[in-house]
């Protein structure tokens, strides 16, 4: 039978490659496995995957190509918010469901008929972090954010919700996505009176360098990172300096440490095993976004018993209690994200490993 | 200054130093329209530098240059051309990626009457102007004997031809005064003679010519006046014959050979 074509555009190269690459690998891996199991609705599945190199303009072109040339029935991809926003009009106009892998809240707010997303929003991450800070009695923090899309957007979201927790930002610094030294900024933060903790919204290598410089300067305050560094490589890069860093992250990083009763435990364990076997690399949350994206779509196709884009969309919107590696999803016509704060776990890094739900000091 | 009629070119007390070296040191001279004024002197004694001072390529540390009575000291080179001063270069400065005729067409730049906007829009006037310019450039090439090579790339022309090409380009600006830096270098005696006629022609048309040259036959034959520079200072100035007979000049510059050559010019 004709294959069912699912499209994807990710940033497999370029500055966001460490997000896009695991996404791409996961998508390929799962489509392969799906086909081994006989595909969907008795038809093979074909993944049409393009690399936008981090360029929104290219992403837009590939989106057109997926719709016009490849005639895909659904799309899973969009590594960055910018690329996702550039592609949305194409899929909206064509009426093809699009599950984005990017963090920005504007992707699903306002809700668009055909657009869904799998990652947590920055807002939930901020809330999780501030909850933890509040529990530890922290009221004055310094913030050092990356100026990339992720860092900027998270910084803004955090500033929006921070007052709910009676915490104030007394030092607000930034660094460029490719900087290799953040000592000057951290030095300023260090010298700000009354500071009790530091939060670093950012992804990529920046947070690792922040963490190292933080230790070098002997700042000695609690350091919070974001879900943007939720991969093993952060611990490797930051080295011993990572000890004591806290961050909100999905279950996937601590799969083996989850309680046996945890719903996510089996899903996470299975994904981790198969990904690490196939690629020889440790899992990251980013690959997990891709996993959830492709699962949501294939489940929707099965449920709709049709490869018609409209029907897939309707089935997607009807998703209820899908247990993924990132969290448990329930989409509604007014909620195309479908994740709650509880899908984030607070982790602390100790001796080079993630520790779950670290009790407050 | 002295109340007499103003000279076309009046250089007074000009000078410049590089590091400690006074390359040109308080040199003065005057050139009248239609005159051929030659500057000679040992290698490295400041002739080219003097040209560079007069034409605004170097900034003089002292002295003044007047053109037809107007003070032009320190004016940018392109403004000097507009006032009627054109030159050639000892180390060739040819537009190597253009054809011979295009080189001369660039020289006609000042007489071209189109605007940037017209050029952009490709108005018919531009086409007309191009034809006029080309014709004029061809005439000039013909005058220096390069008409057959008009469409050859300048990069492919032999050395001697390039010297003449530069003259044609300088003439294209319709200068009142023309400064030539060793135009006969690289020419054999026959070709030098053609150069001699060319320069004489130019002078006859009322253009003042200032000439730097080491070919004594040429210098002695066509110069009205000769200035000898030695170590940046004027060593002698006067009519060719007087300069040739000056023992200082013979000792510092001419030598036997030069003196002989100079004599041949006077037959």
């Amino acid at each position, binding site marked *: 039978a004709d294959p069912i074509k699912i499209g994807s555009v990710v940033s497999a190269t370029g500055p966001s490659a460490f997000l896009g690459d695991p996404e791409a690998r996961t998508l390929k891996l799962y489509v392969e496995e799906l086909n081994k199991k006989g595909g969907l609705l008795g038809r093979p599945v074909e993944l049409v995957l393009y690399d936008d190199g981090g360029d929104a303009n290219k992403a837009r072109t590939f989106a057109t190509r997926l719709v016009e040339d490849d005639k895909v029935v659904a799309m899973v991809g969009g590594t960055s918010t910018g690329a996702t926003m550039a592609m949305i009009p194409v899929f909206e106009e064509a009426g093809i469901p699009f599950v984005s892998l990017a963090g920005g809240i504007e992707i699903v707010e306002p809700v668009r008929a055909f657009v869904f997303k799998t990652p947590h929003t920055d807002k939930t991450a901020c809330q999780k972090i501030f909850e933890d800070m509040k529990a530890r009695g922290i009221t004055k923090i310094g913030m050092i954010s990356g100026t990339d899309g992720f860092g900027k957007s998270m910084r803004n979201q955090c500033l929006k919700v921070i007052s709910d927790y009676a915490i104030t930002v007394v030092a607000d610094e930034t660094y460029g996505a490719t900087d290799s030294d953040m000592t000057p900024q951290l030095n300023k933060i260090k010298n700000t009176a009354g500071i009790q903790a530091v939060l670093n919204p950012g992804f990529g290598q920046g947070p690792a360098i922040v963490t190292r410089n933080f230790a070098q300067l002997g700042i000695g305050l609690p350091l919070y990172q974001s879900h943007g560094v939720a991969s093993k490589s952060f611990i490797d890069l930051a080295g011993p300096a990572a000890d004591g860093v806290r961050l909100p992250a999905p279950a996937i990083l601590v799969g083996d440490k989850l309680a046996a009763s945890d719903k996510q435990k089996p899903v996470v364990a299975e994904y981790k095993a198969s990904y690490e076997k196939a690629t020889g690399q440790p899992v990251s949350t980013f690959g997990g976004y891709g996993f959830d994206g492709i699962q949501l779509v294939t489940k929707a196709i099965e449920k709709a018993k049709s490869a018609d884009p409209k029907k897939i969309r309707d089935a997607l919107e009807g998703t209820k209690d899908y247990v993924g590696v990132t969290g448990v999803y329930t989409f509604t016509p007014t909620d195309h994200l479908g994740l709650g704060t509880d899908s984030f776990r607070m982790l602390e890094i100790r001796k080079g490993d993630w520790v779950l739900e670290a009790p407050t000091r | 200054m002295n109340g007499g009629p103003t000279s076309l070119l009046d250089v007074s007390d000009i000078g410049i130093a590089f590091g400690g070296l006074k390359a040109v040191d308080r040199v003065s001279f005057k050139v009248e329209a239609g005159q051929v004024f030659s500057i000679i002197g040992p290698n490295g004694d400041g002739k080219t530098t003097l040209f560079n001072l007069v034409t605004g390529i170097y900034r003089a540390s002292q002295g003044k240059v007047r053109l037809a009575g107007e003070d032009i000291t320190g004016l940018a080179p392109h403004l000097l051309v507009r006032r009627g001063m054109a030159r050639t270069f000892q180390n060739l400065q040819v537009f190597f990626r*253009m054809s011979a005729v295009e080189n001369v067409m660039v020289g006609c730049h000042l007489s071209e009457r*189109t605007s940037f906007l017209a050029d952009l829009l490709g108005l018919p006037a531009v086409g007309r102007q191009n034809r006029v310019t080309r014709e004029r450039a061809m005439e000039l090439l013909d005058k220096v004997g390069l008409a057959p090579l008009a469409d050859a790339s300048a990069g492919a022309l032999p050395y001697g031809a390039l010297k003449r090409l530069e003259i044609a380009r300088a003439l294209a600006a319709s200068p009142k005064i023309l400064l030539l830096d060793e135009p006969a270098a690289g020419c054999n005696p026959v070709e030098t003679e053609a150069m001699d006629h060319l320069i004489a022609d130019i002078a006859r048309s009322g253009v003042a010519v200032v000439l730097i040259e080491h070919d004594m036959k040429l210098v002695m034959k066509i110069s009205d006046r000769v200035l000898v520079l030695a170590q940046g200072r004027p060593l002698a100035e006067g009519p060719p014959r007087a300069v040739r007979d000056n023992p200082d000049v013979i000792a510092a510059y001419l030598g036997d050979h030069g003196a002989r050559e100079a004599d041949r010019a006077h037959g």
Partner: protein
Amino acid sequence: MLGKALRARYTPLLVLAALMVLVPLVSTSSFHLRVAALVWIFALAALGLTILMGYAGQVSLGHAGFLGIGAYTVAISPVRLGLDPLLCLVLGAAVAGLVAYAVGRPILRLKGYYLAIATLGFGVIVALVLHSEAEITGGPDGMAVSRLSLFGWRVAGATSWYWVTAGALLVGALLALNIAASPTGRALRALHDSEVAAAGTGIDVASKKLAAFVVAAVYAAVAGGLLAAMNGLITPEAASFSHSIELVAMVIIGGLGSVFGTVVGAAFLVVLPQMLTALQEYEQAVLGLLIMVFMIFLPQGIVPSIRAYLMERLP
């Protein structure tokens, strides 16, 4: 006959126009039309560089900065100033031209690589501003751009955009060809070879360079405006260093100073990556390899090298 055609001034324009008519006859897929429209847009931006680099011999490694200025003017001014998008396109060109004038005056005194680093710095600063001033520019994730309407006609759909961008490129190419064959063009090529001699013929070298720089900026700004309006979204990526390099690469690969070459160069760098996607992770390596191979075997660029080859073989 062919030899004569190769020399004629407007031949490139005719060939280009013929190509533009041909593409929609071959395919009406809006993907193909979009790719073609992108070729026209980037060719337009690169054409400015052809005038600046190819004619006048002055490099710019920050040209995407002007593209960004044009794009963001089109994105921002309808929101902030309530201007009509078409007017914004013009405004973008004007803003870019003014910025080029202000920036060009001091830096065009620099030569060669020093000019390269100065323009590069300019581009980096523009990209940084677009990136950082999130309240106005939307920051790294970019901002939405309202639809362009031409005299009441709302430009939408791949076909419309194809023709709008094609038209813009044709006009741009016509102007570039006009300059080449004019006194201004001769002056630019002259100062490319020798600034001293150019000044020695009365050319005001500084102002000619500045004019070329401003024109080049205007080309890029118009292209940027079209890009923003066509995508309906613009990100600071548009002004990035890598885009500046890409524009320079289009000019050189196609053939420095050749108008048609610039279009070929743009097509090379826009279409080739689309064709190489089948190679998956080998795409980058093969793209790099192809650039090298083309430059080694056609060192003058694609169009001039082929043209020279034909000229030698034709009467």
